[in-house]
């Protein structure tokens, strides 16, 4: 368990460093960087590399935004296995829904109770 914390820290930190390098060296905007990382996550899962990383680093791999691409592909592949090619379309959000729905719901709640502080 302690090893898990350690590796979550290291892998999560390293993914963030990749993001920072995209910010500072490649001079990308946050929007571009995040989009790129999500695409990387999706492609890695396409090669079947992201799942072992999740096994290895736990939250270190599921908390960074790359896991968003990973779980989108995952959902799509799962449904594709069950329903053939059309499953690619229908299964996309099956696994990922939590992050997006949480963001939408909490975003709206936040808008109800908070004011921007400036």
């Amino acid at each position: 368990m302690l090893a898990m914390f350690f590796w979550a820290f290291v892998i999560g930190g390293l993914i963030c460093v990749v993001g920072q390098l995209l910010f500072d060296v490649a001079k990308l905007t946050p929007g571009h960087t995040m989009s790129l990382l999500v695409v990387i996550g999706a492609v890695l899962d396409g090669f079947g590399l992201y799942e072992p990383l999740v096994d290895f680093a736990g939250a270190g791999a599921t908390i960074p935004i790359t896991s968003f691409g990973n779980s989108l592909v995952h959902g799509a592949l799962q449904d594709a296995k069950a329903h053939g090619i059309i499953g690619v379309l229908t299964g996309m959000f099956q696994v990922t829904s939590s992050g997006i729905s949480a963001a939408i719901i909490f975003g709206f709640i936040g808008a109800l109770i908070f004011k921007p502080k400036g």
Partner: protein
Amino acid sequence: MLKGQQSWVFENRPMITATGVTGGPFEANGNLADDFDLLYEDLWMGKESYEKAHRLLLEEAIKVALEKGKIQKEQVQFLFAGDLINQITPTSFAARTMQIPYFGLFGACSTSMEGLALSSFVVNYKGADYVLTGASSHNSAVEKQFRYPTEYGGQKPPTAQWTITGAGVALVEPNKPDKQYPITTSATIGKVIDMGLSDPFNMGGAMAPAAVDTIVAHFRDLKLDPSYYDLIVTGDLGRVGHETAFELLGKNGLKLERGQFKDCGLLIYKEDQPVQAGGSGAGCSATVLYGHLLNELKKGTYKRILVVATGALLSPLSFQQKESIPCIAHAVAIEMNGEKR
């Protein structure tokens, strides 16, 4: 009177008789807090949106200026003002409240000097008895439009600048020889200069050549020597732009002393405030000039100053379409009444 290619000389020497300067909480912690007339503790200023707070800043600054000038708003002929928000609504809405005939100006952060040059010109040729001119900006309202939401956790690079919250307004009227007020003597209107920079987080670097171009034009048109002015102060070049402009001026044959060349964006905040490269925004040059610099002039610290307000004429749209940032700068020379030429 036109002199040279792009400069005016105001031989009737319009006076700046009163100013009103308002600021926000961040400016209250800054270097020049004492030079503000009114400081707000809260960015909201008791309003329900930042845009309304922005409008309030300008309204209050106008009221202070009128009060100090001891005149009624009905006596003022024109208002020359502007800001950075889309269609300059805060200024227009403030003009609606004040009911003063109004010219809406947009020159991004150079609006303050554009307004001062125009109002001096109008007053110089007896176009008006009283003219108000000013510029304002509100950090959160401007950030919201040009960058990201204020609560968004994006990292700003060290070249980024902090839009100031504040408004500066000046009352310009014809010269009365016995009064000790600052007067405007000449102005140079700048060209739009584009050096192909396109990083919106490095405005200073983009604006520096415009400032240099205008300063060079000013000295050429008026056939003056740089030592004529005690201080040449730029609007909001920030750390990057200030250094660049200094070197560029040297290359153009204008040898300035270090202490003779300053920047409003660097004056306004303390070293340890997290503003990266310095302050910016339409209110930056307006608050610093109408607050701090005029006070220093009155105290006699400076005799003649040249204020060069710089503006980056970009929009969020133009930058997303990968356009470079065109920039402009206007210069106005100010000295105390009664100084010998």
